[in-house]
């Protein structure tokens, strides 16, 4: 079990302005309020299936958005709402996806675990643990192949480290020096199993050197700290084609999913981590260091809640997908509708089609 106070000494605080802190605090609050409303909708039976909440980990997604450049990609797990919102997806489309509606982010085909929003750089929420790690290496491979300068950020829980796909993805990223930043969001529990029961070591970055990764480790308390560490890793990936492995020690305050009462951890432990909740720390900082008034904080909260309640109302009022939509996009029917599938430059081989060939024929 990692200590919320952190095994390493506190670095000196990163300078920040009130405006910047307010902006990032607001982004984190948007994710939290969105998910609280989603949890309520779940208990009301408006959302079904699995719903894995990101509450407690919001600083990571918000910091990631801060260091991304146009063309960069985020690949993450089924705990994906925070990334969609932080990267700029419409909360209405996100909530509608949870509600299984036609207006959802992926038209009601994916639900909570499979948010994809290419327009903001969200290249997917993946729900088979570890399976997205080589896929992210593939995105980075394409960046190297095409020389597009993009960085792929791939997030996983600490529960993804035992599975083979993670190792294989790491290996190829390291072997081929791909521009990728792998981030372990170590929230301490793989579903209900603490790290101590799945890993012989506490510090997960010890795996990095065998893949020639540059590694870094941080307890998530401060969104500016997370931003700084992610920015450093992104710079290495972008400028030096140096893959990085960053372990961010964090905590989820809710159960693994909505059906999990989280009986495997003590109230005391949760309380100790809640004291380090970046959202609350930053709220307190706004109040005490920057003198933001209670009224101003409440007004900000009201605005955010209003935005997210509008998303709920939108999702509720949206129609379900049309019946024929279940077959849409099973296969690409019209390549011209997809920019990635354009003809190669200088295509001069006519698309001659021959139905059958008779070697004995004329």
């Amino acid at each position, binding site marked *: 079990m990692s200590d919320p106070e952190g095994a390493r000494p506190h670095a000196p605080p990163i300078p920040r302005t009130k405006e910047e802190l307010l902006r990032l605090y607001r982004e984190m609050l948007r994710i939290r309020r969105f998910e609280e409303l989603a949890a309520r909708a779940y208990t009301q039976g408006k959302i079904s299936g699995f719903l894995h909440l990101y509450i407690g980990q919001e600083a990571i997604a918000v910091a990631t958005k801060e260091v991304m450049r146009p063309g960069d*990609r985020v690949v993450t797990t089924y705990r994906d709402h925070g990334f969609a919102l932080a990267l700029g997806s419409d909360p209405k489309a996100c909530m509608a996806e949870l509600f299984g509606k036609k207006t959802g*982010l*992926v*038209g009601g*085909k*994916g639900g909570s675990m*499979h948010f*994809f*929003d*290419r327009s903001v750089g969200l*290249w*997917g929420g*993946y729900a*088979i643990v570890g*399976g*997205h*790690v*080589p*896929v*992210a*290496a*593939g*995105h*980075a*491979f*394409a*960046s190297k*192949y*095409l020389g597009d300068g993009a960085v792929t950020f791939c997030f996983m829980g600490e529960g993804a480290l035992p599975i*083979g*796909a993670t190792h*294989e*993805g790491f*290996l*190829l990223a390291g*072997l081929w020096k791909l521009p990728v930043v792998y981030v372990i969001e170590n929230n301490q529990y793989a579903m209900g199993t603490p790290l101590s029961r799945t890993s012989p070591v506490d510090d997960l970055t010890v795996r990095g050197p065998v893949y020639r990764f540059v590694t870094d480790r941080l307890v998530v308390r401060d969104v500016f700290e997370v931003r700084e560490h992610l920015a450093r890793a992104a710079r290495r990936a972008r400028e030096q084609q140096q893959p990085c492995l960053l372990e961010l020690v964090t905590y989820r305050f809710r159960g693994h999913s909505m059906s999990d009462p989280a009986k495997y951890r003590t109230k005391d432990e949760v309380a100790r981590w809640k004291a380090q909740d970046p959202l609350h720390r930053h709220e307190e900082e706004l109040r005490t260091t920057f003198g933001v008034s209670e009224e101003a904080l409440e007004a900000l909260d009201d605005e955010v809640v209003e935005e997210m309640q509008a998303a709920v109302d939108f999702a509720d009022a949206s129609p379900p997908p049309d019946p024929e939509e279940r077959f*849409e*996009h*099973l*296969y*690409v029917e019209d*390549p011209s*509708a*997809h920019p*990635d*599938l354009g003809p*190669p*430059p200088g*295509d001069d*081989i*006519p*698309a*001659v*089609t*021959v*139905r*059958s*060939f008779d*070697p004995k024929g004329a």
Partner: protein
Amino acid sequence: MAVLQIREALRAALDEEMERDVRVFLMGEEVGHYDGAYKVSQGLLEKYGEMRVVDTPICEAGFAGVGIGAAMAGLRPVVEFMTFNFSLVAFDQLINNAAKLHHLSNGQFTLPIVFRGPNGAAHMLSSTHSQAFDAMLSHVPGLKVVSIATPYDAKGLLKSAIRDPNPVIFFESEVMYSVKGEVPDEPYLIPLGQADVKRPGGDVTVVTWGQGLPIALRAAELCQADGIDCEVVDVRTLRPMDLDTIYASVRKTHRAVVVAHEWPTCGVSAQLAARIQADLLDELDAPVLRETYEDVNMPYAENLERLVIPSAERVRDAILRVAYHRI
């Protein structure tokens, strides 16, 4: 017109498509410096360099996933499995990612990728290296599945598979890479999803693909002596399957035998028999029979292996049975 081996026809397809489209690259174990475990990719590394002919460590889940991620990002990967037996450790990538991501992302991402390599039994490789994945992979919505048996089909179908905007499983065979046949000098494509009548005939339809084709053709020759004229239909694409061509043949002959290098239980051959019997019940003069592997893990010993794999003689007997011919 050139006479090429299947491996040469596949190589020509790869070469032409890599030359045509800089986004196309080949990746897999031993594809580069070793020139391919079965020499399909011989010479391509020298011509295209290491960024486009990519040797990988032994990590199928890893490089299948890299191929998928690269395809999503706009490249056109051809991923070689040294054999499809090794694809088992990459099944999560094939089934959860390749087959689903276009649909799951509601069309935001496309997966123009080919997974190719030998499938089915070779010769005395025992059970872990002699498996057929026809049914397992054809079962999955979102994938296309091709199985080739001639140099002409190998080239035309691989080129189409590489150009296809969807993930394509492309089955070859270790024991057929040296099979020779004529291949036109001019460029051509064979569309996916079209069966091909490899031998015209009027009495019994023999439906087959891949390694089943040479067996079916030999059985058809044997039946000639019994006065039975077989039509051999090569399915070529298992998904989507060209039932029209198969049905047209069965409507003519009213009898069908399916010959398949795969296990019988829940096989593609079972699917075919079910469809023919359900859709053409009134046309049939006999139940559809199947000749497949025996329902057992492949033994190493030569005599045992020969018993498990369908022989031309076994197929001949099935043809005679559906023709109600005295055996």
